[in-house]
């Protein structure tokens, strides 16, 4: 058992690319679900259209990188309106149904043979991150403390990522302390009451959906740039469910909970995964466990951990126990 390697990869996972991407997606979901009570089960699609919007602009049409970012953002906003206009006037569950279906439609369009000349089919798109890395201020080398270090490309992606997370958290903090955030939280509690007090509920729900989508789509850009490639299956529904897990793990409607939740989620996954694979190669586990099935066992164990957390701390890590108690009344 190589505990040093396990420890190093685990610590790196706490600030790594996956954590950044999932944290941004989860901040978006926290705005929509945690504060406004909107069940957006299609967050993966918001990241997908942003990532593809940028990648296709640059790789397929050979247009500038920044135009790609603008198109990615615009695509996200358009998607939010397309999903929101028909469903936000209806009961909450309709948005959930429509978004989960829309996310699958978006993914299947991206991987379809018909449009492979544009989206690249199941291989996706590459060769679009050149301009981004050309802006890299870090000279070649490794950056970090001792063994916990990254090369200059990863360092650049993570720097941008954590700055975006900081900005997103600052935004959420300011908004949720303001009267705007108060209306959002009130809508989560009871729409009709808010309507009876003269607030345009539809407009606020739309603003929350767009804002959550846009924050999430930043994660989509980073996902694509960090891997220097986009593939349709990165944006499957399980992506959305992991992001929801992260929000609930951290505690819904708390500013930093998605960030801490994302870090814990990935630390758990990486730690359990690496420990299991080290244990298997060292022959410490019964022959039932092989290199091929420990991936599934890893998710089982993490799932068990999350279940225990929700049983013993249902409000999440940052949640307020008093709020959960109110639901029981």
């Amino acid at each position, binding site marked *: 058992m190589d505990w040093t390697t396990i420890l190093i990869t685990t610590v790196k996972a706490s600030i790594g690319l996956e954590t950044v991407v999932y944290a941004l997606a989860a901040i978006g979901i926290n705005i929509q679900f945690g504060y406004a009570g909107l069940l957006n089960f299609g967050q993966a699609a918001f990241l997908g259209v942003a990532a593809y919007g940028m990648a296709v602009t640059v790789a397929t049409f050979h247009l500038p990188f920044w135009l790609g970012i603008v198109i990615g953002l615009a695509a996200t906003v358009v998607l939010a309106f397309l999903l929101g206009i028909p469903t936000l006037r209806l009961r909450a569950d309709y948005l959930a149904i429509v978004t989960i279906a829309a996310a699958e439609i978006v993914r299947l369009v991206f991987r379809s043979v018909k449009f492979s000349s544009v989206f690249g089919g199941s291989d996706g798109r590459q060769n679009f991150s050149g301009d981004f890395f050309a802006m890299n201020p870090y000279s070649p080398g490794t950056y970090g403390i001792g063994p916990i270090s990254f090369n200059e490309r990863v360092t650049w992606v993570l720097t941008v990522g954590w700055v975006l997370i900081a900005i997103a958290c600052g*935004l959420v903090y*300011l*908004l949720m*302390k*303001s*009267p*705007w*955030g*108060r*209306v959002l*939280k*009130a809508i*989560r*509690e*009871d729409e*009709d*009451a*808010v*309507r*009876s*007090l*003269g*607030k*345009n*509920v539809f407009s606020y729900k739309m*603003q929350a959906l767009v*804002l959550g989508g846009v924050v999430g789509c930043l994660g989509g850009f980073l996902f694509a740039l960090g891997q220097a490639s986009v593939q349709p299956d990165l944006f499957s529904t399980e992506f959305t469910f992991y992001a929801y897990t992260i929000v609930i793990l951290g505690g819904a409607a708390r500013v930093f909970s998605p960030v801490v939740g994302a870090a814990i989620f990935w630390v758990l996954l990486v730690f359990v995964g690496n420990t299991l694979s080290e244990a298997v190669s060292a022959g410490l586990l019964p022959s039932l466990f092989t290199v091929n099935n420990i991936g599934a066992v890893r998710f089982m164990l993490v799932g068990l951990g999350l279940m225990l957390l929700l049983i013993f701390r249902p409000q999440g890590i940052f949640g307020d126990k*008093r*709020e959960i108690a*109110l*639901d029981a*009344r």
Partner: protein
Amino acid sequence: MHADTTPSRKAAALAAFAGLDREPGVPKPDPILVVDKVVRRFGGLTAVNVDHVEIQRGSITALIGPNGAGKTTFFNQLTGFDSADEGSWTFNGKQLKGVPAHRVARAGMVRTFQLTKALSKLTVMENMRLGAQNQRGENFFRALIPGSWRGQEDEITERAEELLERFKLDAKRDDFAGSLSGGQRKLLEMARALMVGPELVMLDEPMAGVNPALTQSLLGHVKDLREEGMTVLFVEHDMDMVRDISDWVVVMAQGAVIAEGPPDTIMSDSRVIDAYLGAHHDAPMSAEEFEEQLQEAEAELEAGIEEKA
């Protein structure tokens, strides 16, 4: 000062109703709300079919009727929470048909709900602040600059504190609204509606689920609304309350307004008794009917005797 205005406002409201006809849809001297031919159907069921009704400004009007009379549906339509199939209504002369609920509230017609809608995970104070209108900080971009809304927020808080004190909720200021008792939630909902600054307050069963100790204080608050120049329209089942606080009563049955009148005499109106207890339940027999029944009974008796013989 409070004591002087009390009788005058009530007297003014009562004077406005003096000598009015008891017919449904009777015109009032100064109506704030005028409803014409409002119809709402759910499939084959006509839930509301109100021909004409006027609500007098500055009065407390009760809307009563047996279960299923369509009172709440009618309320929902007037306040924009449900759409009417036909008809029109004006509030302060402004056409309100098809106007969404939030605009109705902004126009000055604010309602409460039969099942209280306290926003549980917001504190009592946040509930109150939410009611204030034209808040700069409710705009997305202004919300990001706290300096642009802080001043207004302080004014709102001050107004909210006064109201909370009046409704005896000031001790609960920082508690979650979800931790309040049923009666306190009713009080909070009423206080929150007042934060909107309404002209017409629509209360849907304000006494439902309130313990008797709080009833008196709630009644007092409703009367205070009139003293402050507001108009109140409320749905209620508790006839004692209706008799105690209302200046005028509108009775609905099977979707239609069947009678109107002052509270002390309305319950003796035959149309109202019919609506609550069914028609002819205790109608006195006329002399002819009595004769007829007597003869029938005699005939039966004779027939029985003949058979035996």
